């Protein structure tokens, strides 16, 4: 199983596709998501989001705050701004 990942800012969908793992920084610390993760809803702080795509490429984004939601192998990351 692969993860279907969407990284969304208020104005655009910045990244979407399939990935093997996603890591992000929540209020409580860094968290890594692999496939078949249990449903989760987390609050992100300023930091990096790294998406490891199925093609072996890792994509990094700097986000400032936001939310991470995981359910049924779908990961959505909502953020206010992305650099």
């Amino acid at each position, binding site marked *: 199983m692969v993860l279907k990942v969407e990284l969304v800012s208020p104005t655009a969908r910045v990244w979407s596709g399939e990935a093997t793992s996603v890591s992000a920084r929540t*209020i409580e610390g860094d968290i890594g998501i692999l496939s078949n993760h*249990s*449903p*989760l*809803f987390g*609050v992100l702080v300023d930091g990096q989001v790294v998406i490891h795509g199925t093609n072996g490429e890792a994509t990094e984004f700097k986000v400032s705050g936001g*939310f991470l*939601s995981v*359910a049924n192998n779908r990961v959505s990351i*909502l953020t206010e701004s992305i650099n």
Partner: protein
Amino acid sequence: MTRAVSAVATFSTTNHPLTTASENPKRAAVLIISADRGMAGAYSNNAIKEGEQLAALLRERGLETKSYLVGRKAVSYYKFRNRQISGQWTGFSDNPTYEDAREVADALIEAFILDAQVDVNGVDEIHIVFTEFKSMLTQNAMARRMLPLEVVESEAPAPAGLLPMYEFEPSSEVVLNALLPRYIQARVFNAMLQSAASEHAARRRAMKSATDNADDLIKSLTRLANAARQAEITQEISEIVGGADALASASAGSE
């Protein structure tokens, strides 16, 4: 986003200030989204009228209303009638950005968090009036209650089965605290975008009918001008012919 909010709201048992309705509401904020510029037919008027109806409804329930206005048209309407304006934002109605929406939403949330019973700036409810964009031909001005949120128990089954049982990190209260202001911002942003789309559609339609009217006018005036020119020519010819006739008969008589 909406799905996430409903998941959080459904599974949290906490009483967040943003979701609990006041027992005895005193004041309500009404956010009206209108246009900055005219030439858009009845677009702004419809939104303002809808706002008036909502305000009347709220007054019937014994609530004071506070007006928050977006767009120069609504502002000048309220200024002309000497009404109090609690907040106004202009200059971005045709192309709103998320920053604009955030500014407006934050002002509303700030007023909502204040206790309306003791603070004259506090409000118990927030309503929004915007123009829903259905298609290029149909746009509807409508009023919606934004806060306090209602957890609606919908009869229809959820589209993709049950909502998953979310784990919250760090806890549902913290998530809700962080999420709800964003949700309001997103709602305001969505309303602004729909209103902007409606404004452009309304303006396009108004300009189209203005063009059609002008075309009709040009057609009828061209006909009128042609007829007048023709009449002038006919008259000149008959004058010339008449003059030539008179000359011919005069010279025939002198011979």
